[in-house]
């Protein structure tokens, strides 16, 4: 069973529907016991980092997610859920993340060239770093396949963990992993066929 952590942030109906669509037994859950019993955990999120981090901590689920991930249970963070995996974020102040992925989250505004619109919204291509093997989460995805992004902030100082980038002026972090922890900056649940392949690969991982 896959537990999608429901901590009161954003619209998770599409994400839930995507897992059901590919035949996975997914449940929305805010119950610590159920999340601990799950084979895999998905951490969603949209909105502002500080607010989401606070909600996750106040619900008591931040500790549950961190402890389970440290035991080696596969964890997938999506969009803001991916950013929460980092050590800290500089979105409107400085906020502490879960620290499961080394690095921090900063605005893309200073790094994208003039004329590039911020937020980065739309379909963009995935590129895999050439100096490392392709991550198992991209098992069925090819270099250059398109996925759907909506974000202003991005993960940086995390080069060891980067498993995919996307070009928007500079190469921005599109996906990260460390051990059995994975993070996707884009929305697989809005990325059509390619997105479904990524979620399927996560479902097929050994816990």
């Amino acid at each position, binding site marked *: 069973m896959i537990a999608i952590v429901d901590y009161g942030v954003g*619209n998770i109906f599409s994400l839930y529907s995507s897992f059901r669509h590919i035949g996975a037994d997914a449940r929305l859950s805010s119950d610590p016991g159920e999340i601990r019993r799950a084979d895999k955990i998905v951490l969603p999120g949209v909105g502002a980092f500080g607010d989401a981090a606070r909600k996750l901590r106040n619900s008591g689920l931040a500790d549950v997610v961190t402890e389970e991930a440290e035991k080696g249970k596969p964890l997938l963070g999506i969009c803001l859920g991916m950013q929460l995996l980092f050590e800290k974020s500089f979105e409107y102040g400085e906020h502490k993340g879960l620290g499961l992925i080394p690095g921090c989250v900063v605005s893309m505004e200073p790094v994208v060239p003039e004329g590039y*619109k911020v937020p980065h*919204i739309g379909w963009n*291509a995935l590129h895999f770093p050439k100096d490392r093997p392709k991550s198992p989460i991209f098992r069925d995805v090819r270099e250059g396949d*398109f996925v759907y992004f*909506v974000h202003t902030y991005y993960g940086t100082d995390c080069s060891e963990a980067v498993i995919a980038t996307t070009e*928007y002026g500079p190469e921005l972090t599109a996906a990260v992993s460390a051990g059995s922890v994975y993070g996707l900056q884009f929305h697989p649940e*809005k*990325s059509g066929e390619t997105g479904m392949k990524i979620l399927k690969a996560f479902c097929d991982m050994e816990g």
Partner: protein
Amino acid sequence: MITKRIIPCLDVRDGRVVKGVNFEGLQDVSSPVDLGRYYSENGADELVFYDITASAEGRRLFADILREVAATIFIPLTVGGGINTLEDFDRVLKCGADKVSVNSGAIRDPSLIGKAAKLYGNQCVVLSVDVKRVDGRFTVFAKGGRENTGMDALEWIRRGEADGAGEIVVNSIDTDGVKSGFDIEMLKAVEEIVSVPVIASGGAGGIQDFIDLFREIPDIDAGLAASIFHFGEVQIPELKRQLAEAGINVRR
């Protein structure tokens, strides 16, 4: 590099797609779910569902349809039509919409954009504007293009962006239905004053019109159309093939 988006728009009344369509291999062409799936499997980058229902019963049917679409189609969904309050935003977002498009509702209550952006984020709020030239001036029309508001369109769009609209749909009443191309002059004027994505609507009659749009205004983000897609005059995979050939970056 981000791709240019191609967006079909579906008008829905009482839970059914309004315009008659004819597709090979598609049984029920008035089912928003079937038609949405057809488009998403055939290259559409996003779908817009526009609720033109007036009755409460029709609204309820639309909500059911939207939930079904969002559970089966995994590309971005924008919903418009009858969005007048934050409760309307909440209603369609809960059914699985990713973005909400406001038009007359924002004209009636100009504070709506700001309130919605604060609550749901700028990326969620789309300002849709029907524009027509009146005495040589770009003017905002309300109620589906029937009512001249007298407002200057560029002023209105600039204000919408400042209030938090994350995307602007510009529908030219002057070129809508004429099928002789997008309103390049109007779209250029809008593109010059905003920094959020701009979606062109109104006037597409064929593939060349999309090529001209993206060539003449390189900063424009997307082209939206309805009948030319529904009637099969333009097939999206072929449109994208020709756009790519013309050097325009599209998702294929």
